[in-house]
């Protein structure tokens, strides 16, 4: 295989994740979990599902850890050696990579490059984030630290606010509608209901019906429900509560190794045949085009060129739906749809399970949850499962995909990674 700039073939052989959720220190004591607790749960999930028994502590040579801000969320810095410690990797090298919400994607890509280079044969790429110990305002401010602290934040920027700016620009230029935004959330919750590791495994209709039972109100259908300020309040116009991903605690990890060593772990490894990464100005206002993410377009171009494939070849994709508009923009940036047609595609059902290009079969960040530094690895967990026919329940695609993609974005588009996998 011609690997472009990768010096040798790299395989993905095992994945694991904890159940994403809310393990806040303000919750019932028996439910409180810290980063290290969640990380160890992800590790256990991984080794329990490993096809062949391998001594991970012996084989893994380094840890690449994605984490956005344990410092601000948990008052815990220097996270990588700690996470290496609790799964028995000390004294091997452990490093933390931070690029906001794409910390996990960047950790994965760095791990791929490290193995491809010949420096290591087998490494662990993972991500972890514990977000729920802060107040809503505290979380909003901490996330806003991924925006331009000098020239966006002091003028009132928030993360939903920045994506809402992308949304109004997209709506004005292409006629994208709020209905199309809401349909992204409906689809992803439909998928997430089928994922036992999702933080909110309920459809939006389930949530509406619960509210009807509780006597909160009565709505004739989901559309009336989603337009009701009481249950689906505005966060940042045109985004309402249900256009936003969740505040989540979670951890996920993966083992990356060489083609030769892959067989020690599994008979059906996935190969990383394309990897791409891009960056852009932190401030949205400094980008000439506020309707698309240049970092994602660049990453897609690089990954597809390396894989010698086109977007139409992809059979399953996890894309970064931190907000509903982000999924629409992502499907255009990756090239599944032309600019401005992502909204229509959702309306036509082209991104549902077993359709033209199933997007976010895991439930996405919207329903599965968005533990910032772990999200990029969580996406890869789903792609791995779908491509091996191991996705739980009815969300397993009928035609087991041979080629899959994961698209992970940092901030409002300041960075992005894209990975393409082949069975």
């Amino acid at each position, binding site marked *: 295989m011609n690997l472009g700039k990768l010096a040798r073939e790299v395989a993905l052989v095992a994945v694991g994740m904890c159940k994403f959720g809310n393990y806040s220190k303000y919750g019932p004591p028996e439910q409180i979990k810290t980063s290290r607790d969640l990380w160890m749960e992800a590790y256990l999930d991984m080794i329990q599902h490993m096809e062949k028994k391998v001594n991970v502590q012996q084989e893994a040579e380094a840890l690449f850890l994605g984490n956005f801000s344990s410092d601000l969320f948990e008052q815990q810095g220097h996270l990588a050696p700690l996470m290496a410690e609790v799964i028995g990797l000390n004294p091997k090298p452990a490093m933390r990579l931070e690029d906001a919400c794409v910390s996990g994607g960047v950790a994965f890509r760095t791990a791929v490059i490290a193995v491809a280079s010949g420096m290591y044969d087998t490494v662990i790429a993972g991500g972890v984030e514990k977000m729920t110990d802060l107040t809503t*305002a505290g979380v909003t401010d901490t996330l806003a630290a991924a925006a331009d602290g000098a020239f966006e934040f002091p003028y009132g920027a928030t993360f939903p606010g920045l994506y*809402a700016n992308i949304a109004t620009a997209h709506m004005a230029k292409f006629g994208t509608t709020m209905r199309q935004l809401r349909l992204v959330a409906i689809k992803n919750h439909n998928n997430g209901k089928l994922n036992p590791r999702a933080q909110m495994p309920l459809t939006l209709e389930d949530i509406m019906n619960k509210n009807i039972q509780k006597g909160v109100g009565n709505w004739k259908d989901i559309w009336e429900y989603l337009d009701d300020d009481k249950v689906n309040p505005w966060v940042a116009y045109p985004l309402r509560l249900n256009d936003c991903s969740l505040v989540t605690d979670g951890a996920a990890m993966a083992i990356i190794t060489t083609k030769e060593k892959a067989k020690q772990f599994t008979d059906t490894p996935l190969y990383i045949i394309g990897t791409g990464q891009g960056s852009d100005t932190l401030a949205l206002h400094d980008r000439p085009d506020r309707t698309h993410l240049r970092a994602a377009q660049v990453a897609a171009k690089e990954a597809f060129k390396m894989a010698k494939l086109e977007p139409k070849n992809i059979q399953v994709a996890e894309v970064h739906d931190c907000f509903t508009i982000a999924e629409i923009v992502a499907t255009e940036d990756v090239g599944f749809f032309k600019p401005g047609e992502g909204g229509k595609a959702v309306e036509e059902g082209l991104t549902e399970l077993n359709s033209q290009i199933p997007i976010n079969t895991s439930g996405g960040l919207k329903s599965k949850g968005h533990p910032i530094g772990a999200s990029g690895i969580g996406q890869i967990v789903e792609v791995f499962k779908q491509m091996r026919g191991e996705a739980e329940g009815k969300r397993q695609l009928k035609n087991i995909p041979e080629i899959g993609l994961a698209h992970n974005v940092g901030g409002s588009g300041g960075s992005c990674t894209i990975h393409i996998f082949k069975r």
Partner: protein
Amino acid sequence: MAQKPKPDKIEKPVVKPAAVKPAERPFTVQSYVEFLNQKKLMGAKCKDCGHINLPPRIVCAKCYKGNMEWVEVPGKGKLASFSTIYIGSSFMNAKGYSPKKPYCFGTVDLDAGVSISGHVKGVNELDADSIKIGTRLKVAYEDGKETFIDRSGNKQERPKVFLTFIPE
């Protein structure tokens, strides 16, 4: 414990905002903020390629050289994107905004060829459909104050001018 200044080092004098003159100030974030406090939107014009850098910076964003001069940027332009924000930052909440009183945050393409984020006032935040991308805007300076923690750890307040935009 703060180290005592070495004898050969002279502490820089504190420059009060009123005393700020463009020629004396480096092309830094701090200078930009201090000019805003004087109700001036100041940018750095590249002497090599003519590009106006707003906010100011020492390395030109277009040609990446480092020969700058201060210019006052005309604060007129048009709204390029916006959102009315209901769940605001703690910073804006402290200014009295809330889910019942959202604020409009947008990006503005200035006629000078540069863009900037700002708080957009003078629009109907509670009827976002009435806010139109492309609306002509001009800079308006809002007198306010900010709280900060001083070196002793005490919370203090000082006057601050906020950059906002209003319809032209």
